[in-house]
């Protein structure tokens, strides 16, 4: 348990660092959302109105320190402020509206890609020297392809040319978001293509990573021993080799969740998916500090939580870490 306590301490420290960085970055950078707004209105806003707007957006001239304290205070109350892009909508509302889509699409697709990728990696390592090795060059290529490029190509082929799948948004125009079969069906149908791209693009890494660890593990004495014991291949492959090979991958899985959310920006842009990635880009484009901060914070904390869960999983899966716990 001391191990977990130590990790918890580390996560708190990291969370604090993320929160503070989050506070600092927008403030250290040039520019001002109101100026942008004015620019986008092509000067149609009279300068006299600008100060009033600044005030309304909560841009203050207080000292950085004071702003920091206010910011921490607001955070403690769960207040993320109002978005400027969607003024006067609360940032928390924007996030609450968009996060489920990201988690639903990107999260589930990533999970699937992890599961399939891991399984494929295990099997490919096991069947080394067979035709399955032919998958390797393809995986290597997929691992290096720009994600959005694949996505766009798929959109073009399956969405535009063949018109098998819808190419944008999260559900059809003719259904309203409600708990109905029709809506669910529409959501699934719309998620199909983006999900497939995510799975395709992120699976390659997983296959290659898993295969490498697995191949190394397969050379371990306990795997040879398991084989010698006359166990079935399935049992040797999964309980002995894969079970051990997966361990080093747990942490990297958790860490890669950060990339997931990051990668989701591109997915969501390509597929016009109403998730948190689209919102982040919008926030950046509009210098919407509160929105950016809120989203960035949510992402960082999610990654931290995922890492903590990964640590827990590690403790559960690897008895060697439990030793310390008395």
């Amino acid at each position, binding site marked *: 348990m*001391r*191990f977990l*306590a*130590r*990790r918890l301490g580390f996560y708190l420290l990291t969370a604090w660092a993320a929160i503070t960085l989050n506070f600092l970055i927008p403030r250290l950078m040039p520019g001002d959302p109101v100026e942008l707004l004015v620019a986008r209105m092509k000067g149609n806003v009279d300068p006299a109105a600008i100060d009033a707007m600044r005030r309304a957006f909560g841009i203050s001239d207080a000292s950085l320190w004071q702003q920091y304290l206010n910011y921490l205070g607001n955070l403690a109350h769960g207040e993320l402020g109002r978005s400027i892009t969607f003024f006067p909508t609360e940032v928390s509302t924007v996030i609450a509206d968009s996060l489920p889509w990201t988690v639903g699409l990107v999260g589930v697709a990533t999970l699937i890609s992890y599961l399939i990728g891991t399984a494929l990696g295990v099997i490919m390592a096991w069947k080394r020297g067979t035709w399955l090795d032919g998958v390797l060059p393809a995986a290597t290529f997929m691992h290096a392809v720009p994600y959005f490029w694949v996505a766009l190509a798929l959109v073009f082929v399956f969405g535009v040319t063949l018109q098998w799948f819808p190419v944008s948004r999260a559900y059809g125009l003719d259904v309203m978001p409600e708990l109905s079969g029709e809506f669910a069906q529409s959501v699934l149908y719309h998620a199909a293509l983006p999900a497939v791209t995510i799975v395709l693009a992120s699976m390659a890494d997983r296959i290659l990573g898993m295969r490498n660890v697995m191949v190394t593990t397969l050379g371990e004495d306990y795997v040879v021993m398991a084989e010698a014991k006359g166990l079935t291949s399935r049992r040797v492959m999964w309980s002995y080799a894969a079970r051990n090979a997966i361990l080093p991958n747990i942490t990297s899985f958790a860490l890669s969740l950060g990339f997931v959310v990051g990668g989701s920006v591109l997915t969501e842009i390509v597929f016009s998916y109403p998730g948190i990635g689209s919102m982040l880009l919008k926030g950046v484009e509009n210098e919407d500090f509160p929105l950016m901060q809120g989203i960035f914070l949510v992402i960082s904390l999610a990654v931290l939580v995922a890492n903590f869960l990964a640590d827990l999983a590690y403790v559960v899966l690897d008895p060697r*870490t439990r030793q*310390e716990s008395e």
Partner: protein
Amino acid sequence: MNILEGRDLTKHFTAARGPRGRFGKRPPVRAVEDVSIALRAGAVTALVGESGCGKSTVARLLAQVYPPTSGEVLLRGEPVRAHRGAAFREYRRQVQLIFQDPFASLNPFHRVRYHLARPLRLHGHARTDAEEREQVAELLERVSLTPVEQFMDKMPHELSGGQRQRVAIARALAVRPVALIADEPVSMLDVSIRLGVLRLLEGLARENDLALLYITHDIASARYFAEDITVMYAGRLIESGPSEELTQSPRHPYTRLLLESAPDPDRVAAPEGRRHGEPPSLIDPPGGCRFHPRCPVALPVCSTEVPGRTELGEGHWTHCWQAEATLAR
């Protein structure tokens, strides 16, 4: 004349982290406790004990790789205090270490010549390239790696284990030390080539009047190559004496067990089949004599008091309540 001496050396490893590096603090490992050992010029002293008993730790304490928790190291009777700077470098020049694994002790990225030239340059024995070359050649010749021209430019992976160990020995000699600590120098080598390396070491010690500490878990080889043998158990010394005397008439029950257990086709009767249990943990070692849980002849006092040194004459001594008792009788 004692060249190098350790007095009451104790080493506790604390706050060390395991290879995972992500766990909480560990309790201290009491690796070495009250070890006193002395090396004489031109003589080979052996330190024998089972794996994990602290032999390497003693070696590293003597070589000042890390400082002792308590106790001191004396070079020619002078306590060594410096841990950095010129004085420390001078100490390094006098005392050299040879490692167990010849595959790990040479940097795979440097040629043989680099390994030998660096210490020569560092300690100012060679100042020009020509001097360097000459001395490297001479060193290689001393460890019988001939033709030297050929070996000078080889990479470590081009050498066999025995050859690598010779390079390692040559490197230690390059600084012209007065004391050499060889930590299991042959245990990673094949039986057939062990002899050559051991003979080389022995010869070098004799010729150059080096003080040599030979660390091994093979008590039979200690008998052959060392004048004196010191036996260690779980971080403490338990018996020491001239090698012939110690191997033929051991006094400490552990030494006896060690000798009995060593495989020996010449043995007349097979040793009794009783189980001896496992070596103790150094984190929470048994009180009193650390051997008492496994000792067939333990006395009640053995579990409470650490036995003192019992002199048995002719440099033979032991830490054992039984010996004490026998002597007292």
